[in-house]
């Protein structure tokens, strides 16, 4: 069945002459044209530190308030109503098939980044049991990645998405380094991958642990900001 994974409508498969000419495998899109335009990509005018969509290219107020080593984050889409609806169905209702909506955009975005090791943000054991997948690694297809971070067992009193900004910023370090992570991370350029950048708290905690593992540089990429 050839249907859009998001809205369920039939996909009109149009084969062009140039596709026939190349004689390669036909690339089947997972989503219809209407769903592809539902998410809003972040344009060139964004905050150079956190990747937030703005009207100019200055560092935004949230980033100015952060102290400590700066973390450069790139984001693909604006976290708007459509993105929220997507995350609701994918993460919270657990519709794993929706991963295919963002696999191709993420592949293109990763190709533009410079890094040696890709480290996705992990989910804790209880969420893994409940959800049955890690929402971040679901978006990866064949790209190699290293699960170098683990979630502390004692963490998780409340999910990040249920807190307000102040409570998020107070969150204690939830991550520990995986055993033997230092062997992989020593002297490498690391790219962290997460779903949503909201305050930057989670990614900064993760970056701090990665630096402890001996990494040379840490940047991050998120699907939404």
């Amino acid at each position, binding site marked *: 069945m050839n249907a859009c994974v998001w809205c369920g409508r039939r996909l009109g498969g149009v084969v062009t002459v140039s596709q026939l000419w190349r004689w390669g495998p036909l690339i089947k899109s997972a989503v219809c044209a209407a769903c592809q335009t539902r998410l809003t990509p972040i344009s060139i005018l964004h905050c150079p530190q956190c990747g937030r969509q703005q009207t100019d290219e200055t560092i935004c107020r949230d980033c100015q308030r952060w102290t400590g080593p700066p973390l450069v984050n790139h984001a693909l889409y604006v976290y708007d109503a459509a993105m929220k609806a997507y995350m609701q169905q994918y993460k919270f*209702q*657990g*519709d*794993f*098939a929706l991963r295919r909506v963002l696999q191709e955009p993420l592949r293109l975005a990763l190709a533009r980044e410079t890094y040696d090791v890709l480290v996705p943000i992990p989910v804790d054991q209880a969420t893994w049991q409940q959800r049955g*997948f890690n929402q971040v690694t*679901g978006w990866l297809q064949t790209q190699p990645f290293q699960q170098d971070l683990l979630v502390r067992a004692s963490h998780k009193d409340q999910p990040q998405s249920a807190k307000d900004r102040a409570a998020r910023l107070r969150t204690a370090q939830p991550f520990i380094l995986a055993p033997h992570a230092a062997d992989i991370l020593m002297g490498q350029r690391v790219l962290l991958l997460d779903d949503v950048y909201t305050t930057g708290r989670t990614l900064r905690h993760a970056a701090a642990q990665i630096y402890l593992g001996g990494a040379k540089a840490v940047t991050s990429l998120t699907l939404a900001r």
Partner: protein
Amino acid sequence: MTNNEAFFGRQLPLRTAPTPELTGTPALKALGSRLQCQRCGHWLGPDDQLANQAWYCRQCLQLGRLTSQDKLYTIPEPNQSPKLANGGLTWTGELSAQQRVAAQSVLAHVQAQTNHLLWAVTGAGKTEIVYPALAWALSQGWRVAWTSPRVDVCLELAPRLQAAFADVPQTVLYGDQPQPYRYCPLTVCTTHQLLRFKAAFDLIVVDEVDAFPLATSPMLKRAIDHAQKPSGCHLYLTATPGERLQRRVARKELAVTYVPLRYHGHLLPQIDLQIAWRWREQLRRRKLPARLIHQLRGYLRAGQRFLLFVPHVADLAVVDQALHLAGITGGVTVHAADEARQEKVQAMRDQKVAFLVTTTILERGVTFPNVAVVILGGDDPVFSTAALVQIAGRVGRSAQFPTGDVTCYCHSYARRVRLARGMIARLNLQGRRQGGRP
């Protein structure tokens, strides 16, 4: 509520058994080489697998995800609710003579536990006709569900049933309701919520059985069959049964009770067909058919309020502009995603606006006293036969103003319009035999 009550006639997905004596059935069952969801009947696709190798059903995801790690737990319906003397009926209204005949027939079919269709014209008082049968069923200690594919129908109906059966505990179930589930002899719910039940109800009343999405969804039809006990029966209510239901009636697979007359005893207004050749091309030049303009001006002069139906949301603005150019003002446009929809409809009810320009969202469930109806482009595929009959049924609903005009402007004499006119004519023929007045 004891803990067990939550499981009576329901199928609840859980990872572990709630009490040791309950045994669950797998939520996804392998039949041949494929898995079938035991809640909604959907056959899983080859890619519906999670990262932890469990399978999950995508179709009924909205009700909470079912995976192959879950089991469905149920306790067979024990019918423990107390039997009230007259079924808890506290309604004091009076049925008209022909409503009483229909109510007798519905009651007889419910007593015989046979499936039944109540085909009552728009504005016949379907709900009240079912009251005697519902009271009898509740007096037998039956568990009853009153369900509709449309949530607004459920929400409108629940207070009426609560008033008519004041002594019967009732619960309303729909998608994002705030209250938790309660075990009650009478359940008002959307058809989707029936997926959570298994062999629970002795009688299921399906209101507006031809409405979207039930008419096109095999999942919801299966949900009705599964929520009903093997010994139970269902009662369909509609003013405009679809072709499939009509075929079942013709083949005598489904018993039917006709109510061809409205409660005030007048016949249905017939659709007056006007050919407006190439009206869409005209509309592109911001012009409406001359006869339509003439008619609407006449309505405005006479102070007659009207509804103007157009095929698509995109047409609303264009038609509004064209009306303005023709000097017909004083109305508003309404569509499904309109945030002020309720207020605009209320303004029309309060006679604050002269007319509404709308799409098919107002085809059923709304009552305005003394309106005329005009359909522009009745040959467009969005107007099904059922929709046209329902739209025509907006006219003449009150006893003070039992008649009115229904005019349909079409480019051509389309099949659906012809069938709608045929259905109204057939019902009026039956109505005339029962003494209906035009």
